[in-house]
């Protein structure tokens, strides 16, 4: 009985102090992405140090071809644009347009992953062949994990933006905005990774 009474009392208190506050989920996400970016920064720092002080041993093979990663860079940059389109469409209450753009973005993400795997299978070195091979697979693999998670999240919000019963509307943009920010972050990391791993 006491439980009931006290919960009633709390309910009364709550209705008295029913407050509103600013939405700071985006702030939390940005803080998280800074943390995530620091993980990549650590990897990049390790790779650059290896490049500066550890010579490639005699006979070790570490050669990268440019065509596939260049295609991948273009894929991700285009997917950032299509994601942006999806957000604009949703803002104008064009849910089905938004959904199409989201599916296109997810499709580009999947193509990126397929290209990445294709590259893995055709490289002349494996994970444990030498230090640079290991670092290459660790860096691109960790990034690929981010792309995989991002693609899954895009598919989820694409499902949520369906017209009947979807919770993603122009009034509730947060899921889309959050995944979009994450996706741009993953793209940005790829550009840095492309420059450091393939071009330097």
């Amino acid at each position, binding site marked *: 009985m006491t*439980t009931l009474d*006290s*919960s009633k009392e*709390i*309910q009364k*208190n*709550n*209705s*008295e*102090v*029913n*407050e*509103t*506050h*600013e*939405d*700071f*989920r985006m*702030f*939390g996400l940005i*803080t*998280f992405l*800074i*943390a*995530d*970016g*620091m*993980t*990549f*920064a*650590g*990897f990049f*720092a*390790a790779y650059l*140090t*290896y490049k500066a*002080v*550890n010579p490639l*041993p005699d006979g*070790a093979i570490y050669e990268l071809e440019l065509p596939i990663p260049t295609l991948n860079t273009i894929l991700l940059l285009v997917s950032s644009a299509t994601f942006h389109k999806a957000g604009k469409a949703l803002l104008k209450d064009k849910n089905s347009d938004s959904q199409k753009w989201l599916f296109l973005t997810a499709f580009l993400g999947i193509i990126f992953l397929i290209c990445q795997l294709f590259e893995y299978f055709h490289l002349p070195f494996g*994970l*444990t062949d*030498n*230090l640079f091979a*290991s*670092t290459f697979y*660790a860096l691109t693999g*960790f990034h690929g994990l981010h792309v995989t998670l991002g693609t899954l999240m895009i598919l989820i919000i694409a499902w949520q933006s369906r017209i009947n019963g979807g919770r993603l509307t122009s009034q509730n943009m*947060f899921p889309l905005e959050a995944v979009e920010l994450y996706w741009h972050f993953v793209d940005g990391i790829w550009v840095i990774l492309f420059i450091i791993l393939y071009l330097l």
Partner: protein
Amino acid sequence: MTISIDPQKTNNESLQPKGWLRYFSFSLDHKVIGIQYLVCGFLFYLIGGTLASAIRIELASPISDFMPRDVYNQVLTLHGTIMIFLWIVPVVNGAFGNYLIPFYVGARDMAFPRLNAVAFWLIPPSGLMLVASYFVEGAAQAGWTAYPPLSITTPQSGQIIWILSVLLLGGSSIFGGINFIATIIKLRRPGLKLMQLPMYCWAMLGTSLLVVLSTPVLAGTLILLSFDIIANTGFFNPVLGGNVVVYQHLFWFYSHPAVYIMVLPAFGLVSEILPVHARKPLFGYTTMVFSIMGIVVLGLVVWAHHMFTSGTPPWMRLFFTIATAFIAVPTGIKFFNWVATLWGGKISINSAMLFSCGFIINFVFGGITGVALAQVPFDIHVHDTYFVVAHFHYIVYGGTVFIIFSSIYHWFPKVTGKMLNDKLGILHFIITFIGFNLCFAPQHWLGLNGMPRRVAEYDPQFQFVNQISSLGALLMAISTIPFLINVFLSVRNGKNAGDNPWNALTPEWLTSSPPPVENWEGEAPLVEEPYGYGKEISEQK
């Protein structure tokens, strides 16, 4: 965009278990989570303390008679890891941060309550996993630093469990840090300015910045290390062309800031406790804030002072020596400010005050040896000796753990509504203070005379001093007994504390003890002068 707090939803939360059962539930209440962190951390402190006692028993004689050498290595690894990742970091950040920060910013809970509960519930499983690894194939043996190639060549299962456990604890720490930053910056009560916040908020803001910026680097490093162990890659394995010094750089990029993650919150807590028991405003509020931020910035660029014997090039030695010496400036400012806060105050000699003063004395010792260790010629002489062990125990035990006890004596009346027995508290302080100094002061001498750390056997000429040190450790073990008796007796039939037994001015004392579910009946109070002691009521706004 705004979010409205749905009363129906919070009401459902209030139907969660009542009484002590709620401490075993996935509670979203920041006060429950704070106590969960504290009690969980204290249980691990008892485990880590038992391991420390085992180490001191072994070192009472120069031969390894109490345990075999490899068990000794496991015990010292577990001791270090448990004390850092499961006692000090969760308690001084998670426990006090979760309990106090929402009060200080005038909020009803943390910014992300669900994330907060997730962050706590990552700790017990990873801690138990770490302790259990001892019974599988032996725990990790490479010390809490897990330097390769040692961590690659010692038995794998223990080391992998160690890595998994530290990764989970790091994740918990990052989630907590995100929550604190969002709460302090975004969830402040309207009208409350940043420069009116109690000092602990600033300390937690600085700490959380360090957590968010440096912990992910450790996570990445440990992932690479686990690849070396499981997949036979060669990131840190010189045999396969890898580079061990890269591991040390990445590891210390987290683990030096980790020292500040452990002591900055203690700096904040002592800044709350001293003004209350000296009845004086905190001296130099603005300089305190700037020194905290100075320590945060400098703390990120001093890590290589742990690596002066790792083939560090001369320019790097020069830079890191100077940067490290600079940290003494903001730290010194804070110490002068605390002494000035006490100066001429109406000091009450109680357990909280005594532990805080003990902290000041011990930390000054640890700080001085710290500046000495930053000097390359001296550091090369005492590197990896007991001098280093003495130094960091003066920082983390003499500094932070003293403040944890001080804070427990200070905030126990708020949490439970009961007073702790002051006589038992003073007894606890005396035994701890004597035991601690008896244990660690002689280790400076041992280190200067060349006794290396992390060894189960040593030159017999060091035996007498080691036995003094072990006697001190025994006293430290005994000192927990009056504390535990005190807590159990006081929870059951302690003196009623009332809402504000210390007549303190910080916001948490303006609500009832223990506080109601959403912290305040009605609106949160606006506290513009949290340290306005000694002023007439009319002078305060």
